[in-house]
């Protein structure tokens, strides 16, 4: 499995010279599975460029797993080229809702007045489904989704292929559910991340920001992300969902705090960066 980052920013796109190093596009990660299957995690603004890249090949089936429907995770959909080309089949999965189907919820964004063209006009064959309750096979991988602590229904994903595990929990505030040194089964998201080789986790805030008014907003401080990764026995943490106000330089200062918080048996953490490609094999 190859993990490619097309967007790692949280909350709002943040282009500009201060963020050019790690990128300003919002959440989008591509997984290239061993059998060639493409799985996309989230449809933030990073999916625009990924869509252009996909057009270089013959139309086919692409799987898109949405963690939740906050705008920074779906805002790129309207500009995802395969959606607007006949011949592509897009299988979407997302969080369940007791009140509306996934297609209905996505259509609230992809319809006037928020967007000029309705989802029903898209030429691609787009199928929208709630995530299965049990792990399911996609290509050569098995995907598992579970609800995690965030504002509104939100999923985290665990993708396992050939014995390697990638966990993706970009929007998550586990500290709200339990102290991060509590019994791990009571920590939101623990089972998804347990013993993962690589975890992309919400690291939006500094400790000072978290403690001064952002508690309960659904995101983690970077040190909480490190503590969560340690509790889950993750081999390597990648800081993800960078605050839109965070410059490249400030991200690197935050990284130093996180690096101090990882366990001795863990690899040094990473800062998720647009264009970064990680092979898990």
């Amino acid at each position: 499995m190859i993990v490619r980052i097309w967007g790692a920013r949280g909350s709002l796109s943040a282009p500009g010279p201060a963020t050019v190093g790690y990128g300003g596009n919002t959440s989008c990660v591509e997984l290239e599975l061993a059998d060639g299957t493409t799985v996309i995690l989230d449809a933030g603004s990073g999916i625009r460029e990924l869509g252009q890249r996909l057009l270089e090949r013959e139309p086919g089936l692409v799987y898109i797993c949405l963690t939740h429907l906050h705008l920074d995770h779906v805002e790129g959909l309207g500009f995802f080229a395969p959606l607007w080309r006949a011949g592509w089949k897009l299988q979407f999965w997302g969080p369940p809702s007791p009140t509306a189907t996934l297609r209905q919820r996505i259509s609230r964004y992809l319809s006037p007045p928020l967007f000029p063209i309705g989802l029903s006009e898209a030429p691609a064959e787009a199928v929208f489904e709630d995530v299965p309750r049990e792990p399911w096979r996609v290509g050569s991988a098995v995907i598992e989704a579970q609800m995690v602590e965030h504002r509104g229904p939100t999923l985290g994903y665990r993708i396992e292929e050939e014995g390697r595990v990638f966990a993706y929990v970009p929007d998550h505030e586990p500290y709200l559910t339990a102290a991060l040194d509590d019994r791990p089964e009571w920590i939101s998201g623990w089972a998804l991340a347990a013993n993962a080789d690589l975890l992309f986790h919400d690291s939006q805030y500094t400790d000072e920001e978290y403690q001064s008014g952002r508690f309960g907003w659904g995101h983690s401080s970077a040190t909480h992300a490190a503590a969560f990764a340690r509790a889950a026995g993750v081999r390597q943490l990648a800081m993800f969902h960078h605050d839109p106000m965070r410059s490249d330089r400030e991200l690197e200062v935050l990284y130093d705090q996180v690096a101090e918080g990882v366990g001795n048996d863990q690899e040094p953490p990473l800062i998720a960066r647009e264009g970064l490609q990680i092979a898990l094999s």
Partner: protein
Amino acid sequence: MARTQPDLVLIVARSFATKLATPTLIIDARGDLIYFNAAAGDVLGRSYLDVGSLPASRWQELFQPRTIDEQPLAPEETPGGIALRERRPVHGSFAFSGLDGHEREITVTAFPLFSRPDEVVGVMSIFWELPAAP
């Protein structure tokens, strides 16, 4: 450790209960006791740290629930048990033997915890001790 954990609704319910000063108890979809808070520990006669999680049969044996007029009450007949079986909120009173040796009467409001419209993952019971009869 097995990579299993309770549904997020139960995790959040437990987190909520830890912060409540009102006695609160949570059972899972099997009827097993999975958590009670410190205030509930005062009424039940022992803390959760001491008691831990208990299968339904075991907590019945420990607390010996019974009706106010002293008829034995099976776990599925308590407000929490009814809420779980019938998937509806229930309010009622019953008596039990506290683990500190005191006999107590409580009134309980129990409601099912739905994680999806068709899936109950447990029941939260909030209760109050009734004043002792004069």
